[in-house]
């Protein structure tokens, strides 16, 4: 096997991984850009999404009698699809609650928001531990995307392809929403100049509530998609929040495409070093960050942000 044909699977794998990283960072970047808050509870919301999905996919509905049995008899694919809708909504509701708590910190030092979301992360993680227990859980996936297929002479995971395609679609849909709908225009305007948005008569509090909920829902979706790969345990969110933070700094705080590009670059870095210098694979994302910030202090697509004021 020559070097190029040996490298190609790792590049493709890195891109797939990058899409998943971008998916993790999407909700994070949305909240930072509009709310001016670094949401350290992002990882816990990520975990919560996966756990709620577990509840929706494999519920104990024996108390509901025939209705419960009928639901349990639904194909796994159907329950998975339902989970992909219900779990993010549930996480969005938690996000709404968190945003209401955050309101007292608006206009004050950024550290207050940071501390509050950090506290919320611990509370959510502990609530998960109390509800579902500390042990490892498995989020079932539909049979159609379970198992492996042969790509040339390599075995590759069907679920990973599904997850990457899902990530791509989610990125596309969020972009369409932000770029092509009036609601998206308001959100972007809010990120750019919140005072002007308020002056135009738009209810900024409601906008912030909705954006935080939307960002939380995106974290929940990422959790559902990543859980079958990373596994599911109460502290799985810690594994998500660090790369999410790194990616938005790398891509430029508040930049949608920055988050996508940052995710892809991190995926490529981790994927390729994972093949040729595995012990450097986690470190590679930090080295990449140092490299980019040395050249562009605001990240790849970053502009002067609210966090700098």
């Amino acid at each position, binding site marked *: *096997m020559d070097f190029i044909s040996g490298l190609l699977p*790792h590049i493709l794998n890195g891109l797939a991984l990058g899409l998943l990283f971008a998916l993790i960072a999407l909700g994070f970047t949305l909240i930072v850009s509009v709310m001016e808050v670094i949401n350290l509870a992002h990882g816990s919301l990520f975990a919560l999404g996966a756990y709620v999905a577990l509840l929706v996919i494999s519920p104990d509905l024996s108390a509901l009698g025939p209705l419960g049995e009928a639901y349990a008899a639904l194909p796994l694919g159907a329950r998975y699809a339902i989970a992909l809708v219900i779990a993010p909504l549930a996480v969005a509701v938690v996000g709404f609650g968190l945003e209401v708590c955050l309101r007292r910190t608006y206009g004050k030092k950024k550290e207050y928001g940071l501390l509050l979301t950090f506290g919320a992360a611990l509370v959510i993680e502990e609530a998960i531990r109390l509800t579902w227990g500390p042990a490892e859980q498995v989020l079932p996936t539909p049979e159609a995307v379970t198992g*492996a297929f042969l790509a040339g002479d390599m*075995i590759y*995971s069907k679920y990973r392809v599904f997850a990457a395609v899902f990530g791509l679609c989610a990125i596309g849909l969020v972009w369409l929403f932000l770029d092509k709908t009036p609601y998206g225009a308001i959100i972007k305007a809010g990120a750019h100049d919140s005072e002007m948005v308020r002056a135009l008569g738009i209810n900024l509090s409601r906008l912030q509530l909705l954006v935080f909920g939307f960002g939380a829902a995106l974290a929940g979706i990422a959790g559902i998609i990543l859980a079958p790969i990373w596994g599911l345990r109460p502290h799985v969110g810690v594994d998500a929040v660090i790369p999410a933070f790194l990616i938005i700094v790398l891509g430029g705080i508040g930049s949608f495409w920055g988050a996508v590009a940052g995710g892809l670059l991190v995926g490529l870095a981790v994927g*390729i070093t994972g093949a040729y210098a*595995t012990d*450097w*694979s986690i470190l590679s994302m930090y080295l990449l960050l140092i490299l980019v910030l040395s050249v562009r202090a605001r990240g790849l697509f970053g502009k002067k942000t609210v966090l700098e004021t």
Partner: protein
Amino acid sequence: MKQRLTRLLLAAAPLALAAGLAAEAFAENKPLVIGLTSDASGQYANSGASDRRGMLMAIEEFNAKGGVLGRRIETVHIDTETTPATGSRVAERMISQHKVGFLIGAVSSGVANAISQVAQKHGVIYLNTNSSSPTESGKNCHRVKFVWDGNGTNFAQSAVKSAIGTYGKDWLLLTNDYVWGHNTSATTRKLAEANGATIVEEILVPQGTRDFSSILLKTQQIGPKVIAAAVGGDDQKAMRTQVADLGMGAKYAWINNQQDWPDVYGLPKENLFGVFGTTWYYKLDLPGVDDFVKRYQALYPDTKMRVPGNVFFNGYWATRSLLEAVEKAGTTNNHAVIKRLEQLRIPAEVRLQHDDAYMNPKTHQMQQTVYLATANLESDDPDHLFKIVSRSAPDTIADRAAEETCKLESFEDTPVYQP
């Protein structure tokens, strides 16, 4: 004047004697505080909880019969976070502020090593319950430290030789990039090469790895016959899930040095590919095992882990053996208790294993039966995960190299400590 002073002294003497006796009685009856140094966060959070439950059950049993030497046993737990630096800090704090009598607990060898250095400095007996790097009873051994788990060498010896004959000679090592992973893989390499195998590659897996796709792609490109994995904790859980998803569990012969029960409990049996070592299983067909399981279930009725595993077992036995040693020594003096522990021998029927277990006085590592297991796909019982395929008596898998590398401090160099 002289007479008055004499009378005063005579009157004061009984009072002083009474006060002295009262003080001694108070000291004897004051609670004995044990510091639990188990992880509650990080890679071994789940195992740390299981370890702690084992220690607490032993303490509960002693307190139910009046404590030890008439003293009630109390505990203090501080999270060691699966981080060596935190382990050092926690040990210092427990000794200097909480005045603990003993320190118990570890899953990570890095953390165990850090704690034991602090413990040796103060002369506090420390029980490394569940970390299994060969260095823990080798070059990092200490007079105050006792290691209760089987180590990488024990497990490798029970698996390597037969695997070469059965599966082939091209071996790939997957090594968690920290002390336990490195030492375990080094032992596996040595044993495999000594028995005619070739190590075609060693892949280092950084701690905290959640995505194994590039590693598994590379493994396919290399195409070994046998994969010997020394990957633990959450890293191992993620690896098992991804290997099972790719169907690679059946494509290669996997040897997982040791399989801690909390790392696999709740996972589908398909994820339990390959063979792996363990020191205990709740379905061992031995008298007393069922009763042990029932005691666990009675004490922890709400835990999601319905049956105890090897980590719990080690936590329990370490603590119980320490308290029995204190009782036999009749004192909490560290030198006396250490001498008792160095002579420890537990009959198989008491220990709930197939062979008598004993403490190696040269290395302070518990010598015990090691079982080789695989997934139990025949049972529908979700708790009945393992099928024991063979077992090795302690002397057949002993870590002889550790006896050469371990240099225990002398008693003269170990500070006296009497909590």
